[in-house]
């Protein structure tokens, strides 16, 4: 759903449009806007698709223009639950995550290149992903990804190097199955794990289960 927003009052105004996902059973669970406001990206929980919508104005609506699967072609869609979607800090790529429905099924983080000069969709039709990382576990309810902020000479204004495609970026990924937190590094073409740790505690109701990570953010 897209609402009018007033930055001064902080209030949502009129419901401008309701956009239905392409298939009835999709379950769009996370939507994020592009930094220029021209596109909206959504991930579907039940079908693990990244959907791309173009912003239409006067009247406002979102037009579906592209659909790509997070999954490799040989796996059953019903084994996965789509989770989060994030652009990279440079804005040159888009990442989406999906979780395995059981401990036997590992999740994925999939990345595609974005071309903001394209008119029909920033991701070309049938474009192969730039990268796909199979996560160490199913991710449980998590497999949530967040990128670290970029820094510049003036940390108060993280703007100057935001377009620099030569910088590497860090990301954190959370695991709700075994309680891992992973730090990943993205160099523009490869997403690799560089560090991990496990949460120290146990489930409050069942000591045989580990403490399970939900969502992590960068504080610095």
């Amino acid at each position, binding site marked *: 759903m897209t609402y*009018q927003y007033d930055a001064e009052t902080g209030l949502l105004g009129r419901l401008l449009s309701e956009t239905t996902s392409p298939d009835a059973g999709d379950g769009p669970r996370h939507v994020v806007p592009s930094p220029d406001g021209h596109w909206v990206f959504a991930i579907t929980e039940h079908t693990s698709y990244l959907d791309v919508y173009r912003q239409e104005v006067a009247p406002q609506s979102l037009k579906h223009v592209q659909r790509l699967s997070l999954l490799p072609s040989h796996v059953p869609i019903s084994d996965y639950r789509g989770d989060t979607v994030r652009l990279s800090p440079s804005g040159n790529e888009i990442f989406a995550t999906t979780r395995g429905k059981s401990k036997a099924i590992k999740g994925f983080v999939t990345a595609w290149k974005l071309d903001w000069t394209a008119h029909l969709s920033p991701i070309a039709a049938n474009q192969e992903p730039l990268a796909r990382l199979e996560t160490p576990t199913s991710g449980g309810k998590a497999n949530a990804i967040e990128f670290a902020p970029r820094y510049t000479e003036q940390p108060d204004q993280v703007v100057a190097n935001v377009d620099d495609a030569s910088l590497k970026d860090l990301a954190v990924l959370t695991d709700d199955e075994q309680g891992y937190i992973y730090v990943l590094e993205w160099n523009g073409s490869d997403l690799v794990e560089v560090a991990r740790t496990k949460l120290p505690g146990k489930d409050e109701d069942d000591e045989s289960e580990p403490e399970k990570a939900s969502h992590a*953010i960068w504080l610095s």
Partner: protein
Amino acid sequence: MHHGEGACPRVRHLLTGTFNTRFLHLLSFDSLTRTLSVLATLPAQGPHSFLASGRSSSAPSGRLVDRVYATTWAAEKTLSAWSINWKGENPELQWVNTVPITATSSYVHVQPPPYFSKTSPSYGLPAGSARYLYSAGGPTGEVHAIDANTGALQEKTQEIVFLPGGEKDLDAADKTRKALRYGAHNLDVGKGSLAYVADL
């Protein structure tokens, strides 16, 4: 290739919630030794299923984030605010306050965002001191004012009902975390004065 050396700190800090304990965990990542460690475990109002960062009007220069907002997965439906003290060697988190909400929230979003980014938390919007917290989950979404100095959650300024039947159906609707499987899931603001809600 580089991480933008010069201003980029060697040690980066992270905060995570959990799905099954009432703790937040502060972590540090040493970019030189490439190690990630749990620095501190903090009793919280959780389990905190989703976190959002914010910045107060009194944030020290050079610090992008000094406030954290959290949803909870627990039976008590609440949102919580935390402040970060950066004076020592490691950041210290302190609970600020907790407010009740109508239905369990899935994701939270802060406006203005604490720092500029093309991705979360700013989606290209300008940064500033946090003034509003947005939450959405299941049948409802809410807007809470934030005290620009303390970061405390203040009054609820708006509640939106996402049920097809509207407010009259709210009493009977499921407001627990089960409703996140088929109701509203996130509320984020983007350019063009628009706010987006994903609804399963």
